[in-house]
């Protein structure tokens, strides 16, 4: 007895191949690749794109002021959901939270208001954050709390998604599909299902802060 799989593949193979005379692939085009590829140029473009997405980019020259900013967003809250601190490129964050008596909440606790994460890369062309799942990096931290603070270092900003893929290709495909989940975050959770009106914060965070250390 043949399986459903073999019958489906058999039917496809028995058919005359569609598009038998395809022209050669056209050269790759990029929709909005930044012109200025210097570190400053990429950072400026990234900041500009993040703003366009109604998110809040903040550049900080030192860790203290970045931590101060984050504490300001947390306000009076007694707990936050965070990645493990060694995954967030901001030394002193753990101590600062401890000093304030701010606990690390349970990842599935939907009462917690703020989630703090890092990112594996950021893309200047679209203002996107590249995330991969992994040890110490709960996916929920950038999803369940209504406020997401992502901390990145300025040198993590790449021109675009294609550049990141080039890096993965150089490392081997295993580096791409080793994590259970790779995902891009571009802006805050949004919908326009009700009469085309743009509303932020449907299921994911409606408020996204990107702290950029320079």
């Amino acid at each position, binding site marked *: 007895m043949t399986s459903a799989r073999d019958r489906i593949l058999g039917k496809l193979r028995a058919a005359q191949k569609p598009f038998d005379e395809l022209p050669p*692939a056209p050269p790759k085009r990029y929709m909005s690749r930044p012109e200025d590829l210097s570190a400053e140029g990429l950072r400026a473009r990234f900041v500009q794109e993040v703003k366009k997405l109604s998110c809040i980019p903040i550049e900080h020259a030192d860790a203290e002021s970045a931590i101060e900013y984050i504490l300001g967003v947390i306000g009076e809250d007694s707990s936050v959901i965070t990645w493990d601190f060694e995954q967030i490129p901001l030394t002193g964050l753990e101590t600062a939270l401890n000093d304030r008596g701010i606990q690390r909440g349970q990842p599935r606790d939907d009462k917690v208001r703020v989630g703090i994460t890092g990112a594996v890369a950021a893309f200047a062309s679209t203002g996107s954050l590249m995330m991969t799942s992994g040890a110490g990096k709960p996916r929920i931290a950038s999803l369940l709390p209504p406020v997401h603070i992502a901390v990145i270092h300025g040198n993590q900003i790449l021109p675009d998604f294609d550049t990141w893929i080039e890096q993965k290709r150089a490392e081997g495909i295993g580096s791409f599909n080793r994590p*259970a989940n*790779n995902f891009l975050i571009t802006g805050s959770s949004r919908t326009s299902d009700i009469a085309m009106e743009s509303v932020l914060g449907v299921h994911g965070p409606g408020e996204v802060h990107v702290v950029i250390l320079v």
Partner: protein
Amino acid sequence: MKVDANNFVSVAQIAVNDPDLQEAVSLGTYNGYSKRLVAMFSNGHEHGEAMRQQAAAMRRRAIQKLPDLLELAEKNMTANGIKVLWAETAEDVRNMVLDIAKKRNAKLVAKSKSMISEEVALNHAFEENGIEVVETDLGEYIIQLNKETPSHIVMPVMHRTKREIRDLFMRELNMPFTDDAAEMTAFIRKHLRQVFVNADIGISGGNFIIAESGSLCLVTNEGNGRMVTAMPKVHIGIVGIEKVIETIEDYATLTQILPRSATGQQMTVYMQMINGPRREDEPDGPDEVYVILVDNGRSKVYATKYAEALTCIRCGACLNACPVYQVTGGHAYGWVYSGPIGAVITPALTGLENATPLPQASSLCGKCKQVCPVDIDIPRMLLDLRHELVEKGMTDKIFDVGLKAWSIGNRSPKLFIMGGAVARFGTRFLPNRLPGPLGGWTKYRDFPQFAPKPFRELWKERKKGKPS
């Protein structure tokens, strides 16, 4: 979902005479159409066109190599820890999903938007088996609450006005009165939170499968797609066999063109590449991931001159651009897929005899091909389907709708070539008729004029308490 495309004319007649639907659909299609234009051609016209050709060539190559890519995708997904199942029919899909649900003793299922699950009538199967299933995309949730079907492949509830949705929430969920879409959304957000936390199984569709890496790609704006693939212990992705692409670079190309065509965004908010269940060292994610590869007629279409329709990336741009869709909305098309691409897919997948009016439901103005991010020649396929109707002697049913009315449509060449996004203005000066062959329906009915003031203006006045 039952195919009900042969009633196209009568359902369209109702739609044309429904002022709420006219208000909602003209707002929705106009919005989608204009946002797409801005996003696609922000780097200049020539560049946008080049992107389309690149995407078109890539999708065609993928469909040409479909059986090989499917095998590669299966091998790599399996190596990634994904359980791959093959379903020949809609019934196979329902049985497979129910089997998994029973094995896991599931009581609650959370779903993110998936057209293919509508195609195989999955929700119905759950309900029959006493398993609660909740749609979590806001639009789909509204559809489920109102016990209707989606009318657009990207904006499922495009046919409803804000007033109608507000009244529905008040009636069904005791929502306090509000006219604010943000407040309505916040109310539903709260309502659905516990569904994500408590669901035993998450179900999603899949926008693409990357063969070389064995990744299931899922693109959502609201975040529900991430929720249903991260919170429940089991994730099932249901995907048509035509969705496979070859490389990660191909996915990058599609991430540039799909959001721009669908919603006018540079990128959709969340673009996932799912490589399998939670890895041992990862703190969250499902323990089990299934991907069901669905044929349900696609391998049959593969061998026909309609194979080109399999390259569709379901962006909805051709719906928004279609002068017929703009006045009928999606329900008249009688199945999951509406608009120009639906007029090809429904007869191709379910049989021409089940959808004889659809090939005629077009003025052949060519807008659908022009806006399609993968340059699908929909007008060519509609003509081929019309030839088939004639060859198979199925023309009598359409004669009245199509051929006779054709002459009426031709008398109004302006409406005929106009992407009806501007129909709002046009209808004030033109006879009360639908464009093209659909003129047949309006023979006895007046085609309502579009509101002289756009919805947004009326709405602003309403908010200020001025009479509208």
